[in-house]
């Protein structure tokens, strides 16, 4: 029990900041900050690898005709781009932020299961080496789309088992991470902190962790059935043997829909931290926000078939999944309204985290609107599998999930490093990202409506103009992202000393720690009092909750 020892020796903080030097520190570390850093660095690397693949795609689509890659490699790029961005960039990004912040936000010294924390990280480099190695196999990497629909995915060569094993490893890592988050929040939060005092980031992660535990085994089951269909003569998904290829889609999306909330819920948490801070006002409707996240999570389990309205479902099934999907707009709307109301009569300033959170607010809402349109089954018969869908999910994932991660990093970076980063450069990073992300994805709505299917390497000439704009946006967005590691690197290396609470309106326990915080966050829980009302701890309210 590492954290208990730390508690005993808490009288002497500095002594415990000693850590092994060199590679072994990172290989064997059980410290939540070290592991969080490794997760974040890994996520950043994967973001650029997946981004490079996206640029191959956009380079090919710059003009009609095939200029850069052949159709097989193009399909591999779309497949790998999705797998790497989802499992390599966004999910580890969130786990990294959880590792860093959850113990600091709940008054704990570390994560509850530090050794497992180390394992769950170190699985990832192996998983992605396995996945990326398929690019060098004779038949190439997986090219059947990240959704791995059979029978197409079963036509893959040697890449199939490697991809499946990589997914198994990623799933194992995610489940371990999720268990760790739940155990930490439930057991290590300071005694005075009730569940309705949890910061929203902790709340959203708690719910995300339950989603992960519920659905990652389902994905593992689905891909294992693909494996046995391919190698051991089973026919789960083959009609010739009495199976059903559509059953795979049902199982996959039973995982897949909660998965998209796994990607976005922690971003809701970050935005719920950032907007109050820079509005200098507590979050509006704290408990409604918690219930909204919980309802979204619940609904995510009963809407999966809206990804597959064109497979030919019974009318009653289509109606059910349409209505259930539309219902998600209600709690999502509540969240957007609450964030907006938080700014009402606030005192707003626009530092980089706030800028990213505001862009999230606008652009995620655009993704929400197109999501609502996609829920309407008859219209979905037109939208399905077109660039309209591509535009929709990129709006919720790039200015949604990715901007959420960026807002979080810019919010807590001074706390982590003890230095202020270059605010001017980060503001540039924001504006370039926001402008180009719209140039990149907004025209894709038009392409989809005009009839361009997704996942095609070449297109009819009437789609040429918007594709060109989209590609220009892609390169602009991709290049702008180089600012991000540069700003972080400079901030780690030095800069103006950051204060403990960093931002004027910051609230929450993490801001009571020094910047940078000690190696073991809270050896003793802080002496603060919480209000009887639900809501986060607010130091500006005289240490007595948010009133």
């Amino acid at each position, binding site marked *: 029990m590492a954290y208990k020892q730390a508690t005993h020796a808490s009288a002497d903080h500095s002594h415990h900041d000693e850590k092994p030097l060199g590679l072994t520190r990172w290989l064997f570390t059980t410290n939540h900050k070290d592991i969080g850093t490794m997760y974040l660095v890994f996520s950043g690397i994967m973001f650029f690898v997946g981004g490079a693949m996206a640029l191959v795609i956009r380079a090919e689509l710059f003009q009609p005709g*095939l200029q850069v890659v052949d159709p097989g490699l193009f399909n591999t790029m779309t497949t790998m781009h999705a797998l790497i961005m989802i499992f390599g960039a966004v999910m580890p990004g969130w786990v990294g932020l959880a590792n860093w912040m959850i113990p600091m936000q709940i008054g704990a010294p570390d994560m509850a299961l530090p050794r497992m924390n180390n394992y769950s990280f170190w699985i990832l480099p192996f998983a992605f080496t396995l996945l990326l190695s398929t690019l060098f196999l004779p038949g190439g990497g997986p090219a059947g789309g990240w959704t791995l629909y059979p*029978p197409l995915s079963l036509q893959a060569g040697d890449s199939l088992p490697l991809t499946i094993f990589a997914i198994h490893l990623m799933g194992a890592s995610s489940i371990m991470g999720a268990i760790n988050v739940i155990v930490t929040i439930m057991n290590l939060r300071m005694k005075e902190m009730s569940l309705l005092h949890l910061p929203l980031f902790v709340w959203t992660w708690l719910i995300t962790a339950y989603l992960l535990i519920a659905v990652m085994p389902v994905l593992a089951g689905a891909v294992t059935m693909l494996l046995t269909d391919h190698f051991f003569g089973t026919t789960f998904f083959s009609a010739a043997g009495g199976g059903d290829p559509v059953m795979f889609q049902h199982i996959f999306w039973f995982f897949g829909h909660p998965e998209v909330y796994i990607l976005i819920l922690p971003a809701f948490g970050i935005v719920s931290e950032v907007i109050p801070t820079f509005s200098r*006002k507590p979050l509006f409707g704290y408990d409604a926000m918690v219930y909204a996240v919980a309802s979204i999570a619940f609904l995510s389990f009963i809407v999966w078939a809206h990804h597959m309205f064109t497979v030919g479902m019974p009318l009653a099934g289509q109606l059910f999944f349409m209505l259930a999907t539309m219902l998600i707009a209600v709690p999502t709307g509540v969240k957007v309204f609450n964030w907006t109301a938080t700014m009402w009569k606030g005192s*707003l300033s626009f530092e980089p985290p706030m800028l990213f959170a505001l862009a999230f607010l606008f652009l995620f809402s655009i993704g929400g*609107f197109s999501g609502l349109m996609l829920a309407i089954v008859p219209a979905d018969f037109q939208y399905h599998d077109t660039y309209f869908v591509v535009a929709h999910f990129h709006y919720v994932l790039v200015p949604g999930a990715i901007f959420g991660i960026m807002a979080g990093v810019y919010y807590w970076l001074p706390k982590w490093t003890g230095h202020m980063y270059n605010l001017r450069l980060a503001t540039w990073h924001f504006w370039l990202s926001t402008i180009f992300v719209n140039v990149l994805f907004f025209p894709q709505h038009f392409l989809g409506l005009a*009839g361009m*299917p997704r996942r095609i390497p070449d297109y*009819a*000439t009437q789609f040429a103009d918007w594709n060109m704009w989209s590609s220009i946006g892609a390169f602009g967005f991709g290049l702008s992202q180089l600012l991000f590691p540069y700003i972080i690197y400079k901030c780690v290396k030095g800069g103006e000393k950051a204060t403990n609470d960093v931002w004027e309106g910051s609230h929450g326990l993490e801001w009571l720690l020094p910047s940078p915080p000690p190696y073991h966050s809270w050896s003793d829980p802080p002496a603060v009092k919480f209000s009887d009302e639900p809501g986060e701890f607010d130091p500006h309210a005289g240490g007595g909750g948010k009133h």
Partner: protein
Amino acid sequence: MVKQIASGLRAAGKTVARACVAALAGITPAMAAWDLNMPEGVTELSRKIYDLHMLIFWVCVAIAVVVFGAMIYFIYRFRKSQGAVADTNLTHSTRVEIIWTVVPVVILVAMAVPAARTLIDIEDTRNSELTIKVTGYQWKWHYDYIDDGVSFFSTLARSSDAARQLGSGVDPNTVPHYLLEVDQPLVVPAGTKIRVLLTANDVIHAWWVPDFGMKKDAIPGFVNELWIRIDDDKTGLYRGQCAELCGRDHGFMPVVVDVKSKEDFAAWLAARKEEARQAKAPQAPAPAPTASPASASTQPEVAQPESAQPAATVAQTN
């Protein structure tokens, strides 16, 4: 050596220049062709779907104006730089929270009702006058007029196929209907309720013509159905594509439908029936000559599927 590099650079420069010109050319004269919206289409259902699409779109625009308007106003009005002071007591209001939960529910119900009504129409395939079986193959379509014994494959036109090869050097703009042209289009009558049965022979495909408003998956081992009724006066060619990733050449299996008047369609079908009968006739006494390249090339589309269609398809459609 230096010369080679120089010529290489010049070639590269030309490519860049050409791309720039193409980019500029794309912006100016082609403006009219910049499609922004879904086509209204030419069928009963496609117009209903289009109306529904526009309804949801305008509802979303209205909500966006209100919500984004509020956000922009708050961002502008409550700037700290302009001396705004936060009112930290504004943390709850049960009344507004009830309002912004109930109002969206009402809007959603208002949208769900017409959507459900249209969906019920879409699913009603009864009383069709013509049935066509569409089978997806990697990477072409097979059309079968199952009551008339006429069937043929439809593949990407040669001109497009030559131009779409990696580094072909052919400018797609010079190819008529690049990637949306086939050797043999599906022919259907206008003003007729047509039931389309969909299945596939290898992997999942999806058959889609945007102007018909419908798209449905063609799944091996299963038969899906959809129906279309094209307006009497909307004869002509309509183009679409496979819409479900089906492998390497997924982007290269277009759907082209030639909509004829009822009379023209009847004449066309009669002619095709006759061709099919003739192609079969010499087969009975002497099967050998039909396999000769000469006769195969005269009737490739009709003769080929009869003999080439794998047994699996037959089994799957049971």
